[in-house]
């Protein structure tokens, strides 16, 4: 258990770090997908196999691919690679992130009763059970989610489509 956790967490951390530090966009995206996979593994460790599957399917299979497609299909989107990697005032960003990190782990370290062992491992929930719960009583949430996805689909298409010819703005 420990070893799997350790390896997977290291992979996740490495993947995340690389994702934000690499110059090459495609490399960064691939690193992100590694991160997703590592996280899926962690979900399995946590006996949430369904979620792990969904994570692979959605994040790796859709979001990651989507980002890759967006990068590859938009001309010169990678931008010039020389120049600064980070924006101006990145130190504040670092400080902010560090502060948030501290805020997040402060209660973890200070509170007691967090190192209880997990509950006895019953069977992980089956897909059938999850499906049943999804439909009733969380059916409304499911439907809303469907609406959301539809809206996102339409919105993405509209936002990404090039403007009509006659409404083209002259180049600045």
């Amino acid at each position, binding site marked *: 258990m*420990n070893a799997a956790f350790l390896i997977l967490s290291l992979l*996740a*951390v490495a993947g995340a*770090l690389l*994702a*934000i530090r690499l110059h090459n*966009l495609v490399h*960064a*995206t691939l690193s*992100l997908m590694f991160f997703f996979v590592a996280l899926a593994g*962690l*979900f399995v*460790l*946590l*006996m*949430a196999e*369904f*979620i792990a599957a969904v*994570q692979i399917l959605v*994040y790796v299979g*859709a*979001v990651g691919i*989507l*980002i890759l497609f*967006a*990068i590859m299909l938009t001309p010169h*989107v990678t*931008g010039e690679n020389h120049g*600064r*990697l*980070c*924006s*101006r005032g*990145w130190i504040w960003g670092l400080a*902010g*992130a560090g502060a*948030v*990190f501290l805020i*997040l782990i402060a209660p*973890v370290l200070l509170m007691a009763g*967090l*190192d*209880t*062992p997990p*509950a006895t491992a*019953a069977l992980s*929930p089956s897909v059938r059970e*999850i499906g049943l*719960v*999804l439909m009733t009583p969380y059916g409304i949430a499911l439907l809303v*989610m469907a609406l959301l*996805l539809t*809206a*996102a*689909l339409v*919105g*993405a*298409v509209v*936002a*990404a489509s090039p403007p009509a010819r006659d409404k083209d703005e002259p180049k600045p």
Partner: protein
Amino acid sequence: MVTLQHYLILSAVLFSIGLLGVLTRRHAVIVLIGIEIMLNAANLNLIAFWRFGPHLENFEGLLFTLFSIAVAAAEASVGLALVIAVYRHFKTPDVEKMNTLRE
């Protein structure tokens, strides 16, 4: 053995990394990637709490995570579409150059 603490610290680290990316990198797509990392870290947090909680038969943690993933996917697609549209306008993915939304 792995306790909740480990998972929480892990997710905190991942979240901070994601935040760092959002606040620091100049490329718009990297900012989106950072957002995705943050969301995932939050999902990990949720699952960990579900797992180490008292009632494993309540699936709220799982369902929450499910919905979070769905929303993240929707947001990622729309976000990328917007990045493309904005890139089309500014001709550069550099967020520092995208500063016309001011007085």
